[in-house]
Each structure stands twice: as C-alpha cells, then as structure tokens.
C-alpha cells in the first residue's frame, strides 16, 4: 500500500473511531435522558399522589370543620366525626366512648362502613362484644397518661384476648371537669391489620382534634346553657303557679276570715233567739196550764181557780218577760239581716267599675265586720265625717279596711286602742288608721307593700294582704303613707279624692 493510501486509511480509521465514540456518547446521553425521563415520571406520580393525598386530607379537614359547627347537638357532632373518620381512613370500625372518673359509661356510639348489610351487622356485633370486654379502668388510665392520639395493641385495653381487632388508635376528643366529676370522650378506631394503619392520615386526624375539641366544648357549654334556661323556665313556671296559688289562698283566707266572722256574728243572735224561743215555749206551756180550768168547767165556776193559777204560775212576770224576749229576738234577727246585707256587697267583688261611694259608710261596715275581734282586750275609737263621697268600689275598699283593722289588732297582741279618723283636707278625704302596736322596724317599712313580704310566722299570713290592699288603693287613685314608731304604733294615712 502506498504511503498516501496508508494515510487515507489512517484518517478513515481515526474518523471511524471518533464516530464510534460520538455514537457511544450519544447513546449514553440517550440513556441518561431516558432515565431522567423515567425518574421525572416517578417524581411526577409521587407529586400527584402527594397532591391527591393532601387534597383528601384537606377536604377531610374542611368538611369535618364545616359540618362540626353546623351540627345541632354533641351526639350529632360525634356521629359525624365517626362517619367522616371511617370514610377518610377507609378501614377501621369506630367507637365513641364517654367515661367518667368512676369509669362509668356516659354514652357510646358505634360506626362501621360496608357495602353489604350482613357485613355491617357482623361488624356491629364485633364492636359490641369488644365494648363488652373493654377494660374501662385501663382505658381511663391510658387517657390520663397521654393526651394525644396513640396507637396501642387492642389487648392492652381488653379483659379478654382480642383476635379480630388487633390494633386500636385512641383519639381523645374532650375532657370535662365538673366539680368532682371528670368526664373524658374518646374515639377508638379499631383495626384488624397493622397494614391498614396510615400514619399520615392519622396525623391529619390528630390535627383535626384541637378544632374538634373546641367545637365540642362550645357545644357542651351551649347545651349546658340551654339546660339552665329550661330549668330557669321551669322554676319560673313553678313560681308563677305558686304565686297564683298564693293569690288564690289570700282570697280564700280573707273569705275564710269573713266567713268565720260572719258565722260568729250570725251564730250569736241566732243562738240567743233560739234560747229565747225555748224559754218562750216553756212560758207558753205554763200559760196553757194556768188557763186549763177554762177548758175543764164553765167560766162561772172556773174563775177562782184561774185567779189562783194567775198568781201561782206568775203570769204577770211571764207576760212581762215575753215582751223582753220577743223584743230581743227581733233585734237579733234584724242584726242577722244586716250582716247578710253586708255580705251581699262582697258577692259583687269582681265589679270593677268605680262609682260614688261613702267612705264613712264603708269604714262603719268594715268595723262592724271586725268588731267581734276587738271585743275583749281592744277598743275602737272613731272620729268620722257625716258622709264622704269618693269614686270607688265598696266591696274592695271594705277589704282594704278590714285588712288594716285586722293587722292593727294583730300588732297589738297585748291589747290597745284602734283609732280610725276621717277628715277633709282641701279636695282630699283623709283616712287615718292608727294602732298602739309594736310598730314596723324602719328597714321593713318600704317592704310592707311588696307581695309576699311578711313578718308573721309561716302559715299565719301569706304576706299578700297589704300588697293587695295597696293595689286596690292604687285602683282608687289613693295615696298611702306609713308612719311607724317601734313599740309606739303604726299609722296608715290614706288620701282619696273627694267626689262632688
């Protein structure tokens, strides 16, 4: 081979070597690219999965958050939580347990998810038997030790060996301390296989816990408040009822008082009229016997006997006494008639129309009604106007005066005088009712018109008397003033507008 030819071959060989090397490089470059591409793809997949994961976690959190706040009760919040958690974690059967420090169940809920009804029933059965075998003391202790979500072997909190649920995740949801009672609420997620436990998702669950706790505590407070409101309403209702009853009792009491007074007033005259009639019956018998000779023989012969009998039977005395008896009987019956007339005023109690009435007459009538009470140790002194017309309701005003008079008497347990004065002061009719009783302590004066205020022993008075009187006087546009000095007495000063 010529040198030139040899040269050409060498050049070609070198060119070929370079080409081969370049191709090798290109192939390596291609491999690198392919690998990079694959890696990129894997990375892409991972990123996509990561994004998807984050999305499901986010939607779990936001969904849970939104729904938690919208649930009306604690039970519904928990129910929603179990349902969401089960869907989010895909596998576990969920339990919610509330325990107090005595390890008693406050409440519990189950949750399981499956497409077939038979499987759901089977799992519910498993959940129930797990709950039955639960070592509550152990669970409570564990919750006291650790406040965060924890993963444990199911056998740790069970009295019997668990062969279905192997692992459990405990998510403490809330702790409530009420006085000496402490309550904890915990979600227990039960797994058959450790493979099913997704730590990332559990972390998400853990991060939802604080928000859930807040929501639950809020709801608890709300429910508590609601309960308090219901209690308050009930108390109020009871109070209203008692008040109604008491007003009724007060009416009954004044009616009872009236009835007792009336009975006494009527019984007295009726009693002596009856005994009078008894005496009269005896007298008639005597008179009959004295006059018997007139029936037995002709009058010509009976006269001496009649004369004798006239003396013997004391007929002059009988006739004289009969007059007396009849007179007092009529008086007694007339008194009964008057009392009945007074009573008829009371039967018109509910008539609310104001009409011209005579205060003097009302005071007198009221004094009549209570006079029996003042008979023994008490006196009544009156200084009244001839007549004093105001606009009012006789029956109601009478109730006021009776109330004031009876109070006055009760204030003077050892006896004393009741002064009732009525006089004019410009356009006003003034009535003063004064006693010599023990008086009202200074601090009580402004309370005496308050309903239910009483210094009397329980059962003696309802404390409504003066307040009813007060409201009646207001109805009459009357003003009341109370002057009282301890151990000297009390004076009620009432001013009415005179009606012309």
């Amino acid at each position, binding site marked *: 081979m010529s040198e030139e030819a040899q*040269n*050409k071959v060498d*050049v*070609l060989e*070198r*060119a070929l070597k*370079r080409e081969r*090397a*370049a191709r090798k*490089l*290109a192939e390596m*470059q291609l491999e690198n690219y392919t690998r990079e591409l694959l890696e990129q793809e894997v990375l892409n997949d991972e990123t996509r999965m990561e994004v998807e994961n984050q999305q499901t976690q986010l939607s779990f959190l936001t969904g849970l958050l939104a729904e938690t706040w919208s649930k009306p009760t604690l039970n519904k919040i928990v129910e929603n939580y179990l349902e969401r958690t089960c869907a989010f974690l895909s596998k576990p059967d969920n339990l919610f347990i509330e325990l107090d420090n005595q390890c008693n169940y406050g409440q519990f809920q189950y949750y399981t998810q499956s497409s077939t009804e038979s499987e759901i029933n089977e799992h519910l059965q498993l959940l129930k038997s797990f709950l039955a075998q639960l070592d509550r003391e152990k669970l409570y202790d564990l919750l006291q030790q650790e406040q965060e979500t924890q993963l444990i072997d199911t056998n740790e909190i069970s009295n019997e060996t668990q062969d279905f649920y192997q692992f459990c995740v405990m998510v403490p949801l809330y702790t409530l301390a009420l006085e000496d009672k402490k309550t904890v609420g915990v979600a227990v997620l039960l797994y058959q296989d450790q493979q099913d436990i997704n730590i990332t998702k559990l972390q998400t669950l853990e991060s939802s816990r604080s928000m859930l706790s807040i929501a639950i505590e809020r709801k608890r407070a709300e429910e508590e408040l609601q309960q308090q409101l219901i209690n308050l309403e009930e108390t109020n209702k009871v109070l209203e009822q008692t008040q109604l009853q008491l007003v009724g009792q007060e009416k009954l009491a004044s009616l009872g008082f009236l009835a007792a007074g009336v009975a006494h007033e009527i019984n007295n005259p009726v009693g002596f009229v009856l005994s009078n009639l008894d005496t009269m019956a005896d007298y008639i018998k005597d008179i009959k016997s004295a006059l018997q000779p007139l029936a037995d023989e002709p009058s010509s012969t009976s006269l001496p006997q009649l004369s004798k009998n006239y003396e013997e039977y004391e007929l002059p005395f009988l006739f004289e006494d009969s007059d007396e008896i009849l007179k007092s009987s009529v008086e007694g019956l007339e008194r009964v008639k008057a009392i009945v007339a007074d009573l008829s005023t009371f039967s018109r109690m509910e008539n609310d129309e104001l009409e011209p009435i005579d205060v003097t007459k009302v005071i007198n009538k009221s004094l009549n009604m209570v006079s029996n009470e003042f008979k023994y140790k008490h006196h009544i002194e009156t200084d009244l106007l001839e007549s004093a017309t105001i606009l009012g309701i006789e029956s109601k005003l009478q109730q006021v005066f009776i109330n004031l008079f009876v109070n006055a008497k009760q204030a003077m347990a050892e006896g004393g005088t009741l002064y009732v004065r009525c006089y004019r002061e410009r356009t006003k009719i003034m009535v003063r009712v004064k006693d010599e009783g023990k008086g009202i302590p200074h601090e009580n004066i402004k309370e005496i018109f308050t309903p239910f205020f009483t210094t009397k022993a329980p059962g003696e008075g309802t404390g409504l008397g003066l307040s009813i009187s007060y409201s009646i006087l207001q109805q009459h546009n009357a003003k009341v003033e109370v002057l009282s000095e301890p151990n000297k007495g009390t004076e009620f000063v009432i001013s009415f507008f005179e009606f012309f």
Partner: protein
Amino acid sequence: MKGSVFNALQEFVETNHGLEAWDTMLNTLDLPSQGIYTSSIKYDDSEMFSIVTYYCEALNVPASDLLRTFGEFLFSKLMPMAPSEAKKAPSLHAFLYMVDNLIHVEVKKIYADSNLPEFDYKDQSDQHLTMIYNSERKLCHLSEGLILGAAKHFGEEVSISQSKCLHEGDDACHIEVRFL
C-alpha cells in the same frame, strides 16, 4: 456551543476540503473533546474559535467570510429542527422576525443549557429590516450567513450589510437586511 454546530462544521469542512482536512486540524489542535462531537452535548466555545482560526490561517481567508459561508451551510442543517410554524412562514421577513421571538425560544426550551444570541428588530418595512444582534460570542458574520441561507430557502433575494458592529467597538451589531 452545542455538538450539532460542530457536526455541521465538520460536514462543511469535509464536503469542501476532504476528510483529511478535518483530521489534520484535529491532529494539529489537540482539542479537549478530541473531536468527538455529539449533537446534544455542549462543548466549550473556545473549541469553535480555535477551529475557525485554524482554517482561516490554513485557507488564508478572513474569519468573516468563512463564518458567512459556514452560516449559509449551517442554516440548511438547522432549518429541519425549526418549529413548523416557522417553516410555514409566509416570507423571509416574517421568518427573520420569528428567529428571536419563536425559534430560539423553542431551542431554549429543548436545551436549557444552550447559548443563544439576542435579536432586536428595527425599521421594519417591505424593503428593509434592521436586526440588532447581541451576544458575547460576537458571531454577527455567522448570522449574516444564516440570513443568506434563509433567503435562499425562501427563494428571496437580499443584500446584507452592518451599520454597526461589535467588532468595531459598537455595543451591538446592526445587520441591515434589504429585500430586493
């Protein structure tokens, strides 16, 4: 500079001066790459300048002429890689406008490590276009050749001159393209 440009240069030298011319140059210069160029790999710019300088001396031609002629050749190698929108350009003018705005943009996307020039466009009319070239490689004459190659491709006639040049101390090359 990308291996593809060296590949084109090798082809240009081998077709015009034979296999030995390329081989002798490599034997003489002893370049770091040993003359093994793979199109997608980036090689040091200085290798390109060494080769160009070597041929200018060997052939006794100014670098500007050599680069212009090589540019014309290079265009036919680059054009097949251009995006289809550029291939369908309605005129040379429209195509030149796409170099900076589309073609090199797409190149940069495919090869993030590529070093491309910057073009600004001025005085655009039916007859005239000023392409303002800027690059630290100062390859304005290569550009002229590329433009000439493009004109041939589109079947248009142009005259090219530079009113300003980086090699003259200006801060950019103003390549004046006149459409005849």
